[in-house]
């Protein structure tokens, strides 16, 4: 579905209001309020050690905010009960961890199908194959995850995050140790994925190379 920017204002898929992050009971950082609509992407930036991953996990509902709220598809995500938040996360939020975090012992295709399995949703092998094919992994469908290159593993992780057609895609340091060519390739893949699925995407990064493609920035400020 093509998005027409001139149409009426679209509902935000991801919104943060007055978000404060804490770690170990100590206030850590403050995230400027923002909202992202379908297909829009932004970089989450800030000085090293300020807690970009913490912020990303707070947006994912894996950590409670110290203050403020996260809304996903206008639902008060951060205020839900844990069980309901788990359920919603499985269905609405796609997560790409910094080191792919695939399940060793399972094949590439199985690692993608872990997403609907964990979320308790129906599994469609054809969809998993299609996603992997578009990410250039058609040839390694039945290869065990532990025998993939870093780049391949990351693309499998992206396919896993996209499988559930999430409203929100949260990506942690996707280009941290990639050379320029590969960094550009991954950035392109992510931009395309967000556009195609209509997900709002937040990429936590300190990599300046991504700014060219994702000009919008969410700034994390250290507190205290």
């Amino acid at each position, binding site marked *: 579905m093509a998005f027409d920017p001139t149409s009426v204002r679209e509902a935000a898929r991801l919104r943060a209001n007055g978000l404060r992050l804490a770690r170990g009971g100590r206030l850590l950082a403050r995230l400027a309020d923002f909202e992202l609509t379908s297909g829009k992407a932004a970089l989450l930036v800030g000085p090293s050690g300020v807690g970009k991953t*913490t912020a990303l996990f707070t947006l994912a509902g894996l950590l409670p905010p110290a203050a403020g709220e996260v809304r996903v598809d206008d639902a008060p995500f951060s205020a839900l009960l844990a069980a309901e938040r788990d359920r919603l996360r499985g269905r609405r939020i796609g997560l790409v*961890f910094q080191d792919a975090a695939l399940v060793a*012992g399972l094949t590439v295709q199985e690692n993608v199908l872990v997403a609907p399995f964990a979320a308790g949703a129906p599994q469609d092998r054809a969809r998993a194959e299609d996603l992997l094919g578009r990410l250039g992994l058609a040839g390694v469908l039945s290869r065990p995850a532990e025998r993939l290159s870093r780049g391949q593993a990351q693309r499998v992780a992206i396919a896993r995050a996209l499988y559930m057609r999430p409203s929100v895609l949260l990506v942690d340091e996707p280009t941290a140790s990639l050379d320029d060519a590969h960094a550009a390739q991954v950035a392109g893949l992510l931009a395309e994925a967000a556009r195609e699925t209509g997900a709002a995407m937040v990429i936590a990064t300190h990599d300046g190379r991504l700014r060219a493609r994702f000009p919008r920035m969410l700034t994390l400020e250290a507190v205290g």
Partner: protein
Amino acid sequence: MNAPRLIAAFIARRPLSWTFHVLVLAASIAVILATLLLRQAVETRLRRDVAGIDLVVGAKGSPLQLVMSSLMHVDAPTGNIPLDVWRNLEREPLVESAIPLALGDSVGDARIVGTTAAFERLYGASLAAGRSRSRPMEAVVGAEAAERLGLDVGDRFRGVHGLSGGDHAHDQPYRVVGVLEPTGAVIDRLVLTDLGSVWRLHGEEGAAEDGAAHRHGGPDADHAREITAVLVRYRSPLAAVVLPPRVAATPNLIGASPARETTRLAALTDIGAQGLTQLGGALLVLSGAGFVVAMASVLLGRRRDLAVLRALGMSPVRLTSILVAEGMLLGGLGGVAGVALGRLAAGWAIARAPGLNLALAPAGLPDLAIVGAGLGLGALAAVLPAVIAVRVEPAAVLNGAAA
């Protein structure tokens, strides 16, 4: 993608370790089970063969030997006793039944027992084919003996002097008139005939034989009317007090209590069995502890995968139950392999001693209970580390760089 596939992938990551733990668990279960099965087989065999006999009266010698030869039919008889011993016991008011046995001949590996029809009744044996024996030189064959010797109703065979493939065959052949249904008792392996037939053979050939037990002048000579033992069943408890001393006071006679002799025998085997059971128990404790430790270290070391599954939306309860199922699968495997190994070992031991005619108890509730215990051990080993591992906040584990 499903829970069994996930469990299989988790287990397959440490194939050697789990093979080792499951096998050690199985081996310790097997030692205990095999010992119990063998003990049970011996006890069942003894109890069946004793068949409610209170006293065995025979020629002086070892009481154990008397019981073994006259009830279990595995040892050599202690000697011969006069027929009158039986007649007197039969008339005794304290005695419910007295069954005479004349042993000494065999066919193939089956012993020929000269006795009365009360012997078949003692073991509750009924005819599978043919009829009961009624005339001299007629034989009724136990189920197993008939099968092993290939004997059927109408067949003729010659008895051989001696209990295990003796040296010379008697001239007069026996005729098979009946084959018995299997009973599970010793009678299955015996060939039964009447006392007269045994006397007749030994009377006719007496001149050719030597030894006190077989010195005969003719078919009707007094010393031909000898038997090997009498199986006695008491009518009242008083008999247990009165009869044994009276038998013991008679020259050249002894009375043996099958219950006491088999208990003594069982006590001897029990010493070995107890040692093995204790060894198995110690092994089981060690292997069970090893299993628990392995399970804990594996599950706690898997936090990262568990955090990913939690992050992908899996509920803690569902995740925990998958891990517990993994433990149960491994523990259950140990139980199943233990039962299989134990039965294999017990079967092997029994097959090595065919003369004892032991039978393995059929698989049943105890085997299921062992598998159940394996499942329980697995669940127990997994549940605590699983709860701990799953409770860890996914963010704390996955926050690699920022933690």
